[in-house]
């Protein structure tokens, strides 16, 4: 009798343990499948959101070139309204305001002497964008629009001004690529101390070597010369553009261009003095150039003036006629020269744009990639997207 009871107890204990063990196994298998499904759904959502952004211009479609339309945006999209497929508006991309930005959107701050700062009231905020995309509260994202070709320009130590132009793609140097360039420089001034903005658009064609590198030397210019150099590379159907502007901090500081607004072909740019040790006169000579696809710039405005402690900024009103281009600014304090550049239309100098929430530390981030065009410049759009609702999101 006692033997049968012990047999029962042992058998029951083993049975219970095995049952619990197998329930655990099944749960784990189910859990893994649920997680897989959840991750798959996020990847699909990522692809959908990316296409939704890239394949419609938004509503109203002219919001890229109109501040008023930006404030009345009812649907978000980045497509160039004059084109189809994956062509993005160079102006819409300038109006994106990430959560970390405050008064200006800070797309580019002193990157190779280039600034892209658009006033926040002229931009659309990240949280508005998530609402317009219908993913507010469910997903966060970050979209990075970067040139497919990196055109990296650096100054080679030399007696004369010599520049190295390195062209490479996301995984490959671009050998035998044709390179065109635009050169602006300032090393002289008028009797009133305003810098003279020189330029050379009759550029000879360069070609990169097997490492994707080309050199350009300017024997008539010393290596102290302030310059802005813009290079456009082309091979096998893809174009890339890069720039280097030699920004120097003079005794009177340096100017920073802030885009206050651009509306239906009129851009207002505030050129403000960034004071250094003193607040003396900083003289400038600025020109806006429209830059068509043929890479022959057309001057569409010139401004000469100065900023100082009593007049710390000057407002420049530029008629752009909704053409992409750039404002190149030469400046001096009477002794030292420098140059900065700001684009109107991101493709004119190949500025990258990153917009959205901070991706670091997120649990599961789905990414997707598209090749796009802005103007004739090849870009890549990479969207990183993650869920804010954990495992509850199953679609």
């Amino acid at each position: 009798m006692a033997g049968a009871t012990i047999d029962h107890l042992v058998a029951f204990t083993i049975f219970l343990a095995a049952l619990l063990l197998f329930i655990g196994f099944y749960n784990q298998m189910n859990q893994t499948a649920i997680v897989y499904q959840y991750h798959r759904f996020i990847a699909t959502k990522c692809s959908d959101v990316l296409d939704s952004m890239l394949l419609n211009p938004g509503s109203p479609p002219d919001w890229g070139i109109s501040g008023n339309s930006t404030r009345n945006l009812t649907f978000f999209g980045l497509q160039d309204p004059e084109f189809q497929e994956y062509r993005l508006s160079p102006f819409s991309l300038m109006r994106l305001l990430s959560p970390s930005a405050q008064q200006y959107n800070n797309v580019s701050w002193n990157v190779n002497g280039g600034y892209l700062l658009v006033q926040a009231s002229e931009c659309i905020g990240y949280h508005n964008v998530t609402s317009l995309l219908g993913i507010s509260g469910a997903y966060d994202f970050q979209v990075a629009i970067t040139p497919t070709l990196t055109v990296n320009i650096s100054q080679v130590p030399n007696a004369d001004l010599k520049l190295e132009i390195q062209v490479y793609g996301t995984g490959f140097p671009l050998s035998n690529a044709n390179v065109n360039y635009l050169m602006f420089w300032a090393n002289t001034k008028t009797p009133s101390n305003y810098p003279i903005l020189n330029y050379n658009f009759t550029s000879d064609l360069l070609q990169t070597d097997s490492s994707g590198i080309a050199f350009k030397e300017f024997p008539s210019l010393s290596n102290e010369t302030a310059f802005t150099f813009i290079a456009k590379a082309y091979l096998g159907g893809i174009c890339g553009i890069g720039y280097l502007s030699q920004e120097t901090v003079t005794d009177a500081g340096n100017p920073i261009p802030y885009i206050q607004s651009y509306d239906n072909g009129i851009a207002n740019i505030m050129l403000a003095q960034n004071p250094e040790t003193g607040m003396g006169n900083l003289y400038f000579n600025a020109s806006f150039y429209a830059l068509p696809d043929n890479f022959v710039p057309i001057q569409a405005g010139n401004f000469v003036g100065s900023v100082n402690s009593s007049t710390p900024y000057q407002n420049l009103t530029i008629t752009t006629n909704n053409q992409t281009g750039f404002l190149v600014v030469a400046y001096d304090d009477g002794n030292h020269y420098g140059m900065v550049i700001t684009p109107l239309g991101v493709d004119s100098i190949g500025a990258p744009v990153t917009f959205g929430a901070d991706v670091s530390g997120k649990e599961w981030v789905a990414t997707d990639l598209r090749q796009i065009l802005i103007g004739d410049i090849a870009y890549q759009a990479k969207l990183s997207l993650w869920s804010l609702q954990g495992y509850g999101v199953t679609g």
Partner: protein
Amino acid sequence: MMRSVEVFIVIMMMTGAFLTASFFAVLPSPRKVSPLNLSRLSLTTLETLDAGSDLGIVAFDTTNDTAWNQLQVALSASLPPNIVYNLTAYDISSANGQPLYSASRSISNTQSLGIGSDAATYMVASSNVTFSITPQKIAATLYILNCSDSNGWWITGYTVQSIAQQFADMFASYFDPSSIVMVQNTSQLGQLLNGGRLGNENPQNAIVINTCGEAVPIPTSYAIQYQSDYAQYCYQLGKKVNQYNWTWASIVGYPFYYVTNTGQPPLNQTQNTWGIYGMRNVDYSDDTGRAGLNAFLEGIDNQQYSYSTAGLTSGNDVVSLTPSALNNCSYYGIFPSPNQTVTRALSPSIITAYNLTKGVNILNTLSTGALSGRVFNHIFKGDSNVTGSLFTLGITRVPDTRLATLGILCNYNPVLYRSQYTAAGTSKLVVLQLGLAGGS
């Protein structure tokens, strides 16, 4: 001991069940759970490479090693380092009407793309080929009333001549040049109505577009003959339409409401009660012009002439284009507004009264049942042949020549012959297959 053995058997069964379930519950590999959309990446890469037609040029230049090497460099530079690819250009030929694709040249950076690859196809056109559309010619004469000695009504903002020129331009590719005849004045119109020709055209089965709106040009001889009752002129027009099996197109408003001739006294001294001289209402008994359409329909039906001012229109409404008209908008590339304001739609009672049948319509029927934007074909009882047609839009002013053109094209339905993209040598198919390095 017996219970322990039973439990052991149960555990064995549960283990078996678990293994069986695990075998069938195949979970995808981690890369497939959250993959890059390779198909889209492939398509967008091809579109980018062909943005300046470079891909198309290289695809047709299969013997140019330099160009293909440059393409490979560009392709490698465009794609992320962990992507492997195979790009192949295919020649297109056809056999028994079916396109055949044969590989002409290929580039790749891998021997195998693994089983998780995806591809996109892209058609590129040869730079040596011009794709064209050739419309089928309508086998009829097109008379456009471009009478210099007439005025128009409800063509506000246009002149008779500008409308006539628009029609000539829009129909230019649908008719033989010799078949488009501009009726330059009322004398030529009279010549036509008297059985003559203005050139080598065949007046039988012709289309006549009245560009004067609600007014109709009247030749001097008819103006003198019927000055006491201009409705009789409209009656004669109806008889000619019947005799020659014309299709008379009224592009706006109430058809045959006024007659116009700016050179013939006393008509040139008369105004249409709205200040337009050289024009007057058709009715002699009141200030309307409704007798004109009644008389025209009597004429087209070969009835005895009877003066009548009974109104034949019914209701005002905003109506939309019919589905078939919308399809034809895309087919012919003519895009008028899909909604039109109709104030002169015709009562359906004319169908039985004048032996008419409903032909092609480009505008939907009004809520009152009235008909607009429609061709009315005259067919005698017991006959199957059409003997004259009236195409009336019934829209309010101002006229839209695109709408009238669309109606006539819908009625005759000429075929557009497009260059075939699959014709040998005109296009190539480029396929870009992408995979992730390391297989799936």
